[in-house]
């Protein structure tokens, strides 16, 4: 079974500029010519794939973390399950899923979400557990219900740990999402994959890879900024 679902062939490889013909490291004319039809769409797809994966992963991990936090017995099995998912090599996981969900976005998202769970879950649980006991005793003594304590005290105090988890999960998802090109012709992995097949066209590999790195760094910086805004108290 082919892992590649008919990606578009770069039409002008071998017949473009001199830089392209000699497989140069950084062919600006190629970049200009193919930003619109190759790199930009791939970047947008990559953002979508990653954002959906981190979003769903966040929601799932939050539910699991609240369950594991409230019912301590659940923590070990949930942690083990997330551990297990995390250890499956991504290529193998894609392969395993294809017979079930086909060469689809669903396959990619299932795999990507699986990889976010461990990091997000562990950080959320640790963040919730690190809430100072004196604050909890005060909350209880003042008559906050369990739910009020969770929403007004525990979750806000866990925000730094939760965002720390989100940052790692986002960066690693953006990185792993390049492998999605083995399943669907989407994301920044796609141009890399095509360039690999076409005598290792260096400019394209570098450009797409560079965009993935830049995207990861941007996401990381945005989340760091979000945390500063959300937790003015942590700088006090």
């Amino acid at each position, binding site marked *: 079974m082919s892992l590649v679902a008919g990606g578009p062939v770069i039409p002008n490889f071998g017949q473009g500029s001199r830089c392209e013909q000699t497989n140069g490291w950084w062919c600006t004319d190629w970049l200009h010519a193919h930003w619109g039809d190759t790199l930009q769409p791939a970047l947008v797809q990559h953002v979508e794939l990653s954002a959906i994966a981190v979003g769903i992963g966040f929601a799932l991990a939050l539910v699991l973390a609240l369950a594991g936090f409230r019912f301590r017995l659940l923590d070990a099995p949930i942690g083990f399950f997330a551990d297990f998912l995390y250890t499956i090599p991504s290529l193998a996981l894609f392969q395993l899923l294809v017979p079930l969900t086909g060469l689809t976005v669903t396959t990619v998202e299932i795999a990507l979400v699986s990889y976010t769970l461990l990091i997000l879950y562990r950080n959320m649980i640790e963040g919730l557990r690190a809430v100072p006991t*004196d*604050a909890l005793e*005060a909350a209880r003594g*003042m*008559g906050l219900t369990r739910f009020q304590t969770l929403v*007004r005290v525990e979750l806000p105090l866990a925000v730094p740990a939760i965002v720390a988890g989100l940052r790692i999960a986002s960066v690693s998802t953006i990185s792993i999402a390049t492998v999605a090109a083995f399943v669907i012709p989407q994301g920044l992995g796609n141009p890399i994959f095509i360039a690999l097949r076409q005598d290792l066209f260096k400019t394209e590999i570098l450009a797409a890879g560079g965009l993935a790195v830049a995207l990861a760094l941007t996401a990381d910086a945005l989340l760091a900024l979000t945390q500063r805004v959300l937790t003015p108290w*942590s700088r*006090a």
Partner: protein
Amino acid sequence: MTKTAAELVFDEATKRYGDGDPAVDRLSLTVPAGEICVLVGPSGGGKTTALKLVNRLIELTSGDIRIDGRSIADVDVTALRREIGYVIQQVGLFPHMTVEANIGTVPRLFGRSKSWIATRSQELLELVGLDRSYGKRYPAQLSGGERQRVGLARALAADPPLMLMDEPFGAIDPIVRTRLQDEFLRLQAEVRKTVVFVTHDIDEAIKIGDRIAILRRGGTLAQYDTPATILARPADDFVAEFVGADRALKALALRTVGELELRESRDGGPLVSRETTLRDALALLIAEHAQSVVVTDGNGTRLGSLTREDILG
């Protein structure tokens, strides 16, 4: 919020964990409305347990506790806690909330508006001796003493008729602690709450308490009385030992020179103000090898003098 203070009754209150010895054993005492009852005793005496029985952080095994005649078992537990101010040694301020939001915790549970809370927190900051600008700060920006003041303001926010204070000044350095004790007494003279105050420090108990309950190991009540009575007539050897061999001196600390009848005398001697305790006056006499102290009023006018014999009664 009409009632300012409630009467608190422990009625054979008992807490037992499993089949073990009780932590609090048939504790019966009444704290009249508006008075400070200090629970004091050695560790293992069950004083903190007794305190936490009141707001049901720990549930009674048997017996009853009544606030203004109403059994705590008959009240919804969160409603009960919202009507009782609670101050703990580690303060337990919420680090992610400003001082104002911390103070507003319970009023917010009662559905008070933002502006009501802002006004109230300003009032309370003033009451506990902090500048109004503290409202916008975070707990991490405060010193230990300031945090405990905010803790006290937070406990007072919903104007509860009863306050539970669990070693509130225990983690604060001695100089600040003395100041906080003095300010707490000044504040109590203003708000007149019923207060249950736990400490392991007998000197603090004598200073703070209108009444002192001394608990012995095993959670039984050894004596419940005013500080003066406990110092003058300890119920048994345990109490006598607990209050210390210097109990006569401690008793002197309960009265000020202004309460005694002064002699007309031209004798010289060290000057003391009317608010000086008999203990401090005596200490001064000893230190200065003097025969008498001269008592003055706030303006330095000489009111009269006291000899050692006057002080020792």
